[in-house]
C-alpha cells in the first residue's frame, strides 16, 4: 500500500497504481486512524447494500408501487430519477406509515446477509459509522459488537453517543419503520429542524475525519448537508475522503474530481473493472486493515518500549550515523504494510527521526531492517545488534496474511498481537527461569506422560523406568509363578508411592480392586490386626492378591513388625497361593539407607532377603514439570467429577504451583486442584490463577506483587490440557 501526503497529488498520474493492493492511502487518513489521531467515521452509502443484493432506492419504490397498484403511474418519474417525488407521491396516496412498513418488509424479504464490504467496514477501527441505508446489514456483520446497537435521528441522546463507536442510521432503519425517511418533509426535518442531528453531524465532521464508502454523491440531501457543514467551517481541507470507483485513467475525469474537491472531498480512486469497484474496494480495505493492525502492534510492542536503554542508544547512534542513515531509509522503505514509514522516508529522513522510528517499529521489523542493512554492507556493529533481535515466526514483522474476515475484531486483534509480542519479548528479557519454562509449554497432552492408569511422569526416562516396574508388578499378578513376587519401593513423602500402586490395582479392574487388594500401614496397624491379615492371606484363595504395606520402615522401636511379616513374604512360593507384596517406605535418605535401617532391626535382614534385589527400586524424584503434569491431570479429574471439562490452565496458575514449595507433593497438588476446580465458572473451561485461592486470601495479591514482572507476563495466557 502506498501513501500520499497532499491531496493535490491525487491527479498526478505517477501517484496511481492500477494493480490490486497498490491504491494509495492518504497519510492524513492514516494518521487520523492512529490512536493519537482524531479518529475516522465511515459514511456508508448504498453501495455495500446493493452488493449484498438489496434493491436500489429506485427498485424499492417500484416494488412498493407495484404492491399497491401504482407502478404504472410512477414509471416515468422514476426513469427521470425523481425518486423523492415518487416516494412523497406514494406516501400521499396511501399513508407515510404504510409506505414505511412496506419498504421495511421489502428490504427484510430481499436481505440475504451482509456483503464482504459490510464485514470489512465493521472490522476497521472506525470511531463510528453513519449510513443512509435502512437495512441493518452493518449490525448483522458486526458479530464482534465493535459498534453500538443501531441508533437513528430519533434517538434522544444522540450527543452522548459521539464518544462511543456509534452506528447511526441517518434515514432510519427497518426495525423501526416509523424512523424511515421517505418524504421531502422528513429530510427537511433532519436538515432544518433537527438541530440535534445537525449538531451531531457537525461535531463528527469537525472532530473526526470522515471516509465515504459506497457513496455515489448523488444524494441531494447529503449534498445539502455537506454544503451546510462546509459553509459553517466544519469540514477541513484534508479531513473528508471518499472512495470513488473509477475507470482508468482516473485523471481523465477532471470534472468529477473538481466537483468533489469543491466540496472539500478528497477522492481516493478505486479501479472499477465493471463491478462498481467492489473487488478493488475490498482489497483496499483489507490492505488498510492489515496496515493499521501492523502499525498498532508495532506501536504497542515497539523496540523502544521493550529493549533496554543501552541498546536503544546504541541503535540510535548506529542508525543515525552518516554512512548508515540512507541505508536505514531504504530498509524502512522495504518494510511491508508500513506506508506511514514510507511517507517519512519520502519526506527525507533526518537523524532526529531515528529515535521516533525506533518507538514505532516492533522487534520483527527491527530485525528486518538490520538484515537489510547488513546485506547492503556487512558490519560488526549491525551483527552485534542483530543478536538482540532473534528470528521468531511469532515475532515476525508482518502480520499473518489471513483475511481480515477471519479475525475477530480490529481492536482486540491489535491488543492480542501486542500482548503476544510483549509476552514473547519479556520472556526473553525479564522472566525468571521458572516463568520461562512455563512460557515454553503450550499444551499438556496427558496421554504422552502416562505410566499407568492416571499415574503420569513428565521425564521420559523416569516414565519408561516406571512403566517397566508397572508391567513387572502387573505380570506378577496376572501369571502365577513360584518366585517371590515382592517389591520394595522408596520415595520421599508425598511422591506418589501409594498412588502408583493403587493405579496398578485400578488397571486390574474394579472387582480386583474390591476383593484382591489389601492395603496395610505399618504405622497405624496393631500387631494383632497385622497377624490376622496375614493369617487371612495364608488361609485365603489361590486367586491373586496384591498386598501393599506402607511405611515399612515405620515403628522402628517395635520388635514385632518384621517378626510377624517376614515369613509371609514366602506365600507366593506356595503352589496354591498367589500374593504379590509391595512394601513401601520413605524414611532415611534413599533406598539403600532404608534397606540398611530395616536390616538393622530384628528379622529385618530376613525380610529384605525375601525381596529380590532387582525388585527394589526408588520412584524417580519428580522434576518440576511433573508437578505441572500432575496438577493438570488432577484438574481434569476434578473437573470431570464436577461435570465440567477443564480445557486450559492460566500460565500464572502453573507458575504459582512451581514457585510454591508447599506444593511439592502429589497430595498437596491434588487438594489444590480440587479446591480450584470448585471455583471455576460453569461453562468456562479455563482455570484461572484466582481460582487457586479462597476468597479474601491475601496470598493471591502477595504472590502477584512478589513476582510482579513474571506474573504480569504470564497472566491471561493459557496452557491447554487434554487427555
Amino acid at each position, binding site marked *: 500500500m502506498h501513501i500520499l501526503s497532499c491531496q493535490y497529488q491525487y491527479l498526478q498520474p505517477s501517484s496511481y497504481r492500477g494493480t490490486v493492493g497498490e491504491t494509495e492511502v492518504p497519510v492524513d487518513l492514516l494518521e487520523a486512524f492512529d490512536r493519537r489521531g482524531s479518529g475516522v467515521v465511515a459514511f456508508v452509502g448504498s453501495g455495500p447494500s446493493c452488493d449484498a443484493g438489496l434493491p436500489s432506492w429506485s427498485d424499492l419504490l417500484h416494488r412498493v408501487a407495484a404492491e399497491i397498484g401504482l407502478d404504472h403511474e410512477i414509471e416515468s418519474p422514476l426513469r427521470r430519477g425523481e425518486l423523492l417525488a415518487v416516494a412523497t407521491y406514494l406516501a400521499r396516496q396511501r399513508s407515510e406509515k404504510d409506505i414505511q412498513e412496506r419498504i421495511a418488509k421489502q428490504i427484510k424479504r430481499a436481505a440475504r446477509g451482509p456483503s464482504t464490504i459490510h464485514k470489512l467496514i465493521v472490522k476497521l477501527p472506525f470511531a463510528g459509522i453513519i449510513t443512509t441505508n435502512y437495512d441493518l446489514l452493518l449490525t448483522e456483520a458486526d458479530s464482534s459488537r465493535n459498534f453500538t446497537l443501531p441508533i437513528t435521528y430519533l434517538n434522544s441522546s444522540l450527543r452522548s453517543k459521539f464518544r462511543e463507536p456509534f452506528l447511526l442510521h441517518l434515514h432510519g432503519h427497518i426495525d423501526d419503520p416509523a424512523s424511515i425517511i421517505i418524504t421531502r418533509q422528513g429530510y427537511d426535518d433532519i436538515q432544518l429542524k433537527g438541530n440535534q442531528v445537525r449538531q451531531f453531524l457537525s461535531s463528527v465532521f469537525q472532530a473526526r475525519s470522515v471516509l465515504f464508502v459506497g457513496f455515489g454523491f448523488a444524494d441531494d440531501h447529503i449534498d445539502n448537508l455537506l454544503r451546510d457543514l462546509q459553509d459553517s467551517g466544519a469540514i477541513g481541507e484534508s479531513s473528508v475522503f471518499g472512495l470513488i470507483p473509477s475507470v482508468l485513467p482516473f485523471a481523465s475525469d477532471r470534472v468529477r474530481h473538481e466537483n468533489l474537491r469543491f466540496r472539500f472531498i478528497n477522492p481516493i480512486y478505486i479501479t472499477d473493472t465493471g463491478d462498481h469497484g467492489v473487488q478493488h474496494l475490498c482489497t483496499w480495505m483489507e490492505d488498510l486493515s492489515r496496515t493499521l493492525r501492523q502499525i498498532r502492534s508495532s506501536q504497542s510492542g515497539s523496540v523502544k518500549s521493550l529493549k533496554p536503554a543501552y541498546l536503544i542508544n546504541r541503535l540510535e547512534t548506529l542508525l543515525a550515523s552518516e554512512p548508515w542513515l540512507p541505508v536505514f531509509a531504504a530498509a524502512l522503505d522495504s518494510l511491508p504494510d508500513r506506508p506511514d514509514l514510507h511517507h517519512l522516508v519520502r519526506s527525507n529522513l533526518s537523524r532526529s527521526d531515528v529515535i521516533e522510528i525506533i518507538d514505532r517499529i516492533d522487534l520483527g521489523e527491527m530485525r528486518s531492517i538490520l538484515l537489510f542493512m547488513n546485506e547492503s554492507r556487512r558490519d*560488526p556493529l549491525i*551483527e552485534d545488534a542483530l543478536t538482540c533481535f532473534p528470528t521468531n515466526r511469532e515475532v515476525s514483522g508482518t502480520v499473518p496474511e489471513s483475511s481480515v474476515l477471519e479475525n475477530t475484531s480490529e481492536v482486540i486483534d491489535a491488543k492480542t498481537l501486542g500482548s503476544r509480542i510483549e509476552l514473547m519479548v519479556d520472556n526473553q528479557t525479564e522472566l525468571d527461569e521458572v516463568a520461562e519454562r512455563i512460557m515454553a509449554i503450550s499444551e499438556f497432552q496427558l496421554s504422552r506422560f502416562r505410566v499407568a492408569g492416571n499415574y503420569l511422569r513428565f521425564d521420559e526416562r523416569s516414565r519408561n523406568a516406571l512403566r517397566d516396574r508397572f508391567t513387572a508388578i502387573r505380570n506378577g499378578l496376572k501369571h502365577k509363578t513360584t518366585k517371590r513376587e515382592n517389591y520394595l519401593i522408596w520415595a520421599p513423602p508425598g511422591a506418589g508411592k501409594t498412588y502408583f500402586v493403587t493405579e496398578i490395582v485400578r488397571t486390574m479392574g474394579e472387582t480386583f480392586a474390591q476383593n484382591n487388594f489389601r492395603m496395610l500401614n505399618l504405622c497405624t496397624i496393631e500387631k494383632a490386626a497385622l497377624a490376622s491379615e496375614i493369617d487371612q492371606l495364608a488361609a485365603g484363595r489361590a486367586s491373586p492378591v496384591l498386598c501393599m504395606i506402607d511405611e515399612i520402615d515405620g515403628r522402628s522401636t517395635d520388635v514385632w513388625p518384621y517378626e510377624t511379616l517376614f515369613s509371609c513374604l514366602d506365600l507366593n512360593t506356595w503352589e496354591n497361593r498367589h500374593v504379590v507384596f509391595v512394601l513401601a517406605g520413605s524414611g532415611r535418605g534413599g533406598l539403600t539407607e532404608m534397606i540398611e535401617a530395616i536390616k538393622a532391626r530384628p528379622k529385618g535382614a530376613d525380610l529384605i532377603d525375601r525381596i529380590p534385589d532387582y525388585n527394589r527400586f526408588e520412584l524417580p524424584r519428580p522434576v518440576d514439570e511433573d508437578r505441572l503434569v500432575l496438577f493438570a491431570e488432577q484438574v481434569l479429574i476434578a473437573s470431570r467429577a464436577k461435570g465440567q471439562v477443564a480445557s486450559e490452565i492460566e500460565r500464572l496458575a502453573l507458575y504459582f504451583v512451581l514457585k510454591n514449595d508447599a506444593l511439592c507433593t502429589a497430595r498437596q497438588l491434588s487438594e489444590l486442584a480440587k479446591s480450584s476446580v470448585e471455583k471455576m465458572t460453569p461453562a468456562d473451561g479455563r482455570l484461572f490463577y484466582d481460582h487457586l485461592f479462597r476468597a479474601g486470601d491475601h496470598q493471591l495479591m502477595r504472590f502477584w506483587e512478589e513476582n510482579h514482572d513474571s506474573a504480569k507476563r504470564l497472566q491471561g495466557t493459557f496452557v491447554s490440557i487434554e487427555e
Partner: protein
Amino acid sequence: MKPRILAIDDEEEWLANFRAWIPDNVATQDSADTTIKAIEFLRQCRYHAVILDLSMDVGDRENRANHAIQEHLATRPEGTPYIIVSGTIQISEVRDSAFHLNAYHVFFKDEIEPSVVRDRIIAAISEASKRDKDLVADARIKLTSKGTLEDGILRTVRPAGGAQGMYPMLDAVCQRLAPIAPHRDRPHFEIWKDCVVGLVWSRQLGFAVSVMLTNRRTSDKDASDQFTDWLGYSQQQRPLFNRDIAGVRVQLFAEAAVSDAHFELPIPVLTT
C-alpha cells in the same frame, strides 16, 4: 580447562613481575592496571585465581581502592580464590581484613618471594580447578534447559547411540565453553529446523560463541543456511572447534563482534 589468572595492580612493574614469576605453562595471565579494566576482566572471564593489589591509589592509605572487587571475590565466584598483594605497612590490619573477606593468601610486597607466589598461585589454581567439573555440569544443565531440551536435541541431531552419544557430545561443547552466560534475548540452546543452535558467552574464553550441532546427514550448505537464518548473518570465520562426535557435526564459532552487554554476566556493565 586451561587455568587463567588475573593480576590487578596499578604498577606495571609489579604486573611484569607476576608475568615473569608465573609462566604461561602454569596459567594464561591477564593484567589489569585500573579498577575499571579489572572489573571488565572479571565480568567477561572466569579466573582460577586473582592477584589483587588492594591499593590502586597512592593516597589510599586504607587500602580501599579495590574494596568492591575484594567484596565480589570474597564470595569465591565460580570457586575463584584471590590472593592479596599489599604494599601497606599496616600488616596486621590488612591481614585481618583479608581473611575476614575470605582471601586465599596475603603477600606484602616488601617481603614477597617469587617462588612462594608461584607456589601459592599453583595451589589456588588447584583449589579452583575442583570446581571445573561442576561448571561443566552446570553448563550442560543450562544448555539443555535442565534436561527438558534433551529429547529435542536427540530428535534433531540423532546422535549415534542415542542419549549415550549425546552426553559426550554436549560435554565436548561444555568443556570448551564453561562457565557460560546466556544472551538476554536468546535461549542457551534452541532447536532450529535441522540444527541445534546457541549463542552464549563463554567465561572460559572471554567472548561470545555461537554453537551449531547438526546431524551429518544434513548437508553443510543446509546447515550453514539454517544457522545464518537463525543468527541473522553468515559465519565467515573458521570455527574455533569443528568435530564430528557420535555422528553429529559440532561447530563453535567465535563471535568477536558481539558485545558482552547483551549477556547476563555476573557483574553488570560499568556505566561511567
